[in-house]
């Protein structure tokens, strides 16, 4: 078990350490997120009712757009450096290493956005009494987005216009996340029951948790041949 766990932890720690040393990626995603959230109220005017109505959609779209460019770069650098090659010839299963990579990406890309979300919630006049649930939605939905992004990034690895292809692959796959996520946060706002949306989002996460790491690993092995 240790032969699997230790390398996975090492992969996560290496990613976190690298992103803390060069926080540019985290900050660019975060600034994108905040920029969207400040510009839209400015453009729409200060109708609080209107803003609160579109707030759930805005937050989700902001999370998606802020994280997409970073997903695209998930593997390109380590593929060029040959680190991926070393991962492939590690005795530790590539599937598990990819799971570690996904967890690291969630911590680096999604977690800062989730932590920034309450600030934006206030700007949009969201009721903050059920804030914890909203953050839960974002965190779980964010994990889905990372897993979809990882698959897409691995599939387009080595192609020149990878950014375009990633967007094309990610867009349809992330629709359910958007639908259940928005419905869930809207339900939270109106005080309706949101358990169903949460369960569907959770089910989606579990499916992707089984599907995404092996598909990512297989796509990378294919691209390294």
């Amino acid at each position, binding site marked *: *078990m*240790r*032969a*699997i766990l*230790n*390398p996975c*932890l*090492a*992969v*996560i*720690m*290496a990613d976190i*350490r*690298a*992103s803390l*040393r*060069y926080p540019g990626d985290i900050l660019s995603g975060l600034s994108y997120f905040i920029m969207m959230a400040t510009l839209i109220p400015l453009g729409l005017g200060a109708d609080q009712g209107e803003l609160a109505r579109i707030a759930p959609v805005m937050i989700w779209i902001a999370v998606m757009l802020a994280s997409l460019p970073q997903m695209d770069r998930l593997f390109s*650098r*380590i593929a*060029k*450096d*040959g*680190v991926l*090659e*070393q*991962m*492939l*010839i*590690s*005795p*530790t*299963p*590539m*599937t*598990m*290493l990819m799971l570690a990579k996904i967890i690291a990406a969630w911590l680096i890309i999604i977690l800062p956005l989730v932590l920034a979300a309450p600030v934006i919630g206030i700007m949009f006049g969201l009721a903050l009494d059920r804030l914890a649930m909203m953050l839960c939605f974002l965190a779980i939905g964010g994990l889905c987005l990372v897993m979809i992004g990882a698959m897409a990034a691995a*599939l387009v690895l080595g192609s020149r216009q990878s950014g375009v292809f990633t967007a094309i692959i990610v867009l349809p796959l992330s629709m359910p996340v958007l639908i259940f996520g928005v419905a869930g946060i809207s339900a939270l706002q109106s005080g309706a029951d949101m358990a169903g949306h949460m369960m569907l989002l959770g089910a989606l996460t579990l499916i992707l948790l089984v599907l995404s790491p*092996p*598909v990512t*690993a*297989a*796509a990378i*092995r*294919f691209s*390294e*041949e």
Partner: protein
Amino acid sequence: MMLVTSILTHLPHDFWQMTSPSIHPSIGPSIDLRLAINDLAISREGGLLIQGLNLELKAGQVLFLRGANGSGKTTLLRALAKLIPLHHGQYAINGVPHTADHAALMRQLLLVGHRNAGVEHLNVISSLRLMASLMNIEASPEKIPEKIPEQIRKKIMTSLDALGIKPLAERQISHLSAGQQRRLALARLMLAADMTHRLWLIDEPFNALDDDAARRLCDIITSYCSQGGSAVISGHGTMPLTPDMTLTLGTSPSGELS
């Protein structure tokens, strides 16, 4: 649809084996036979690049893989690390056949490829630490993954010292020169220098190295082989090291063994 089928056929070998990999005993009937290749063929871009290759490398021997650019040196090395599928034939490292469990085979080899596998945004120690973990070279149980266990740190330092880049230990990988990065890649060999059963697959190690580094590398390989380790080293022209065997690729379809 074609993409789906190709993905399915390329699922990792470990896809159905998520349990802890069993450590294959390195002591077997063919303990002194490090590498055995039998009628190997590898196809690239539709044509056969290497075919009918037979080879036996014993413990303590060095094989020099010589050939012009594009003659298949890298392809052969990567195929031996299972990164490229075989067209035909089989091979075994320490008696572990290439069809064996992924982890069991990977524990028998060590590949230093063209790319140096340094993590751009990390410093030299952290990057080697990740490589040591991926190679499953681990110290006794560690509690805090953030801290590098003393045992591993010592190993990393010895490796860096052997390649003459110890003063660069805290340096960012992206600030290293090409030669220094190459030395760092070769330091990976030293990390596993005490595991003499691992077959070293080194792709053009003498490129980008200065005389000092080349000499150090020769010393490392010589001492590894004197302890019973074996290495396959690719390159063109001559090698500063006297190999036990030379395989010239590209002259005839199957290569010439001398």
